[in-house]
């Protein structure tokens, strides 16, 4: 390969090109200015998005990575630039999102001296990244970048931080690039274990009431088709975790709904009735399991996962099937006997009917009273033919959207699951729109969450990003309000909110918007919002005391789910 002499910062650009990066989110600053100078020379090689806050940059990169499957790239400065991406790193770590975050750092000779804008980025980020590494020599840049992308992407994905000292950015180096294909201390894909695969198949073949729990591992492994074949062959009903949503389309016959605290009645209750529980690429989060001591005790548990450390972490497994779901699912499917579990599957219908009558119909088709969150979500989903990408913020808006938005395509649900980061939504929606430019992005948020990263309307304005923003405004921090009503004797401490005129704010950013307060105006407003491919802000005044049901109160068991009517 031809060797070229260049600055470290240019070496970084060339390394990013080698990794096929085409979009970068970021924010400049003093200790990363040399990299941004190099970026100026390479501005035709990348789509660069200047967000209005570093937190916006990293959440946008997360949204981008989640819809596209590519690694999100962020470049920020040292000190406050780096600490502003911490929330996003923790979020990406919990939600297994591949990111490479490049932070500037003070010159190597100043390290440890409390220099201006110095933070111990490695020390701060180690617990919340898959890998974090400080580059102090320009010559290390290609090696470290290659390793960073390999680590972020392969196996269970996650965020990686590269902290580059200012002198390494300007030092001269010889550029040659070699992609990382192997790290001897890291085995991203556990070897298939034929014995466990056979055991799992036998257990499923002998099951009378099997049930599958679908997690994001299916999406990350691109194993949607393999999952469908698996479920169909042995006739296994499936529930989805929050992050697993859209791996199965909403109308797939064996899809029985959302698991967890605000999930559907059927998949939650049936977890306590099934005889074989098959978890696929999910990690038994406490929001899914409720009280672990009472969780699926009657069932044998088969756990498909790529991450060995997830096995037996929360739920004791009978058989662990380690590996990428794309390989393990077909291996097990091959050994399955075609089966029919008609009566078992029909038993979900009782729950479905009960939930429909007692929760869903009143929520999505109310005939009187204030507008509900559910009816807005339902109408937007219908108006977009269930083909849009759903991005949510966190709280009631998130749970209602997850419950009532329908999916017909994979990678259509972008939300902060593990960390529950309010403010995630708006920048993530920007990233989603850039990562899937051919698709429509509908972002549901609350009056609380939108104000945590509201400044990113500026990013939408500057780059004309076609995000449809729907604010479900109940003038409360709704989810906390719900807990206060149920568990804290209606003492609404710090949850009521006086809000600005959101469409007016949008107008200031050149974004068209409208506020709806009456049910009769809703359809017309949605139609107006979707009339073109431009950003739009729709504020809907919804009922103040709306509640998300069903609900498994924290610490209770999944079959103690309450309907709240």
């Amino acid at each position, binding site marked *: 390969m031809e060797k070229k002499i260049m600055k470290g910062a240019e070496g970084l650009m060339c390394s990013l090109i080698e990794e096929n990066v085409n979009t970068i989110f970021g924010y400049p600053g003093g200790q990363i200015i040399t990299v941004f100078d190099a970026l100026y020379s390479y501005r035709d090689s990348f789509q660069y998005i200047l967000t209005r806050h570093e937190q916006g940059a990293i959440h946008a990169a997360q949204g981008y990575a989640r819809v596209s499957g590519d690694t999100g790239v962020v470049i920020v400065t040292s000190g406050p630039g780096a600490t502003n991406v911490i929330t996003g790193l923790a979020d990406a770590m919990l939600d297994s999102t591949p990111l490479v975050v490049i932070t500037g750092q003070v010159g190597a000779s100043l390290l440890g001296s409390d220099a201006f804008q110095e933070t111990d980025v*490695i*020390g701060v980020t*180690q*617990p919340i990244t*898959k*890998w*974090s*590494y*400080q580059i102090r020599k320009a010559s290390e840049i290609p090696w470290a970048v290659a390793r960073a992308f390999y*680590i972020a992407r392969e196996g269970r994905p996650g965020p990686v931080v590269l902290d580059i000292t200012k002198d390494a950015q300007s030092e001269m180096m010889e550029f040659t690039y070699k992609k990382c*294909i*192997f*790290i*001897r*201390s*890291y*085995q991203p894909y556990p070897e298939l274990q034929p014995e466990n695969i056979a055991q799992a198949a036998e257990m499923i073949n002998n099951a009378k009431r099997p049930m599958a729990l679908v997690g994001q591992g299916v999406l990350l492994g691109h194993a949607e088709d393999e999952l469908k074949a698996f479920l169909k062959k042995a006739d296994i009903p499936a529930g989805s975790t929050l992050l697993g949503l859209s791996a199965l389309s909403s109308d797939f016959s064996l899809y029985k709904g959302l698991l967890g605290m605000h999930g559907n009645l059927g998949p939650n209750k049936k977890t306590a009735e099934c005889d074989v529980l098959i978890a696929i690429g999910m990690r038994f989060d406490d929001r899914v399991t409720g009280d672990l001591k009472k969780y699926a005790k009657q069932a044998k548990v088969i756990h498909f996962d790529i*991450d*060995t*450390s997830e*096995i*037996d*972490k929360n739920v004791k497994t009978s058989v662990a099937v380690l590996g990428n779901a794309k390989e393990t699912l077909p291996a097990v499917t091959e050994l399955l006997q075609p089966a029919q579990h008609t009566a078992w599957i029909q038993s979900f219908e009782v729950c479905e009917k009960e939930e429909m009558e007692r929760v869903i119909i009143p929520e999505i088709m109310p005939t009187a009273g204030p507008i509900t969150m559910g009816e807005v979500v339902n109408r937007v989903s219908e108006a977009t033919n269930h083909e849009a990408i759903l991005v949510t913020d966190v709280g009631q808006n998130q749970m209602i959207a997850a419950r009532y938005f329908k999916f017909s395509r994979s990678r259509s649900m972008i939300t902060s699951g593990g960390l529950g980061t309010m403010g995630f939504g708006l920048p993530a929606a920007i990233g989603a729109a850039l990562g899937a430019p051919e698709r429509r992005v509908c972002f549901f948020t609350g009056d609380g969450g939108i104000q945590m990263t509201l400044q990113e309307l500026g990013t939408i304005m500057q780059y004309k990003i076609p995000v449809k923003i729907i604010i479900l405004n109940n003038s409360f921090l709704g989810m906390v309000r719900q807990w206060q009503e149920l568990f804290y004797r209606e003492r609404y401490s710090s949850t009521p909110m006086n809000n600005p005129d959101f469409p007016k704010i949008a107008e200031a950013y050149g974004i068209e918007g409208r506020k709806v307060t009456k049910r009769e105006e809703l359809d017309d407003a949605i139609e107006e919002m979707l009339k073109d491919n431009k950003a739009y802000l729709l504020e809907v005044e919804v009922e103040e005391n709306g509640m998300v049901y069903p609900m498994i109160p924290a610490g209770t068991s999944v079959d103690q789910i309450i309907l709240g009517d």
Partner: protein
Amino acid sequence: MEKILYTITVYTENFVGLLNQITIIFTRRQINIESLTVSKSSIPGIHKFTITAETDLEMVKKVVKQIEKRIDVLKAFYHTDDDVIYQEVALYKIGAEALLDNPEIESIVRKYNARILEVNRSYGVLELSGHTEETQELFERLKEFHVLQFVRSGRIAITKSTVERLSDFLAEMEARNPDR
């Protein structure tokens, strides 16, 4: 589940910051590290950590898996005291007067098989290798002679198993290297 003392051995690449990556896993689980020894291993470029901590079997399994999950960690193992030959070193500093004026010291040194590393006009230094209870017992025994300083190292341990698991692991991993 019963809490006992486990010896956790960890082999890592020689990168800055590995110690922090390992200890924070204990911190998150509120497990106190009783002792910690870090040194180069017999294989160039690979560092070995020997950690002892009191916890139960289920927890030690989870901790070891989470340590191994760190990218630059090659392999981690846990052992009970029955699985390993282990040792610690203790040093005892005693004032010269107490040392020279007490004929009993000789019999104590003999009995415990301690070594005398240094004697000068001010003090003497004894050394004893052994398990914690043994080095502690000598400390208790020497107390009456006024121990000026006492220090004990972390545990080092070698497995009783005849299989060299790290070299097997390295060979297995290298076999996966597409560039091989």
